[in-house]
């Protein structure tokens, strides 16, 4: 039935269908080859070189399975030690929207500008502060406040991080 319907199709459709089938077949073939022979293709030498280049950050993430990484004790997070905290801090670049919204609760001006801007953030930063031995995170907002152009920087200690499995992001900024 299906074969008969296929034969009745115009030549152009048949060619197109054939091309799609061929493309999918090639992808599948390479997928299967990659699945079964990947380890053999990669030489042991390359693997050793990769191991030598492992970043302490990657090593740390691989050893931590929980998604929340905190500097305080909590029921659903992993408690970071001082070394882990610093490693995470220096390798984290992203500040989550929820971290920004949380910090905004304590900063009215920032909240007004953030909402008026449609949640647009000008700039975010995460940096290690040697003086306080803390990870500082924050963001800069630009917008109108009280009918005047305003630029505001909100910052505080990054006390919680989200491990996405790909990277880490600041999850809680303590700005009070």
């Amino acid at each position: 039935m299906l074969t008969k319907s296929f034969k009745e199709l115009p030549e152009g459709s048949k060619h197109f269908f054939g091309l799609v089938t061929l493309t999918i077949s090639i992808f599948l073939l390479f997928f299967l080859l990659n699945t079964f022979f990947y380890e053999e293709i990669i030489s042991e030498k390359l693997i050793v070189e990769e191991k030598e280049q492992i970043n302490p950050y990657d090593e740390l993430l691989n050893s931590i399975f929980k998604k929340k990484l905190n500097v305080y004790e909590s029921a659903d997070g992993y408690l970071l030690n001082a070394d882990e905290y610093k490693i995470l801090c220096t390798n984290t670049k992203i500040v989550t929207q929820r971290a920004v919204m949380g910090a905004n609760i304590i900063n009215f001006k920032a909240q007004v500008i953030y909402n008026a801007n449609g949640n647009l953030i000008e700039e975010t930063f995460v940096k290690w502060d040697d003086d306080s031995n803390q990870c500082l995170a924050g963001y800069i907002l630009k917008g109108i406040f009280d009918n005047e152009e305003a630029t505001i920087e909100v910052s505080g200690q990054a006390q919680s991080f989200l491990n996405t499995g790909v990277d880490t992001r600041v999850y809680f900024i303590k700005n009070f």
Partner: protein
Amino acid sequence: MKKFFLFGFIIIFFSTASYARRTGCEGDCENGSGTWTYTDQTVYKGEWLNSKKHGKGIETWPNGYIYEGDFFDSKWQGDGTLTFPDGSKYIGQWVEDNMNGQGTFTLADGTIRKGIWKNGILVESN
């Protein structure tokens, strides 16, 4: 071949349906009581009026903030308690998502700031 397509369709249907259950509404999120789960896993459980959070409810953010109390027009307004991720807590009055009115802010280390708050700032201790 038909069986193959049917099998594929069933798999896609059930995986989509199971994902959909993790977001959106359970209950009545228009006029009544229901739980709304946002895509970032923020969860609001409580009362609704005209599809807005209105009445008593509890909102839990994925990063650990928990607000429990009164909602008005989807905003934190009335009496409510906000627990911060580190355990700090504000118990008091709210206006338009901000600490406004009488309230007590207890920091994680036990320090207490009590008094009248205006837009998140303690303006008068008592």
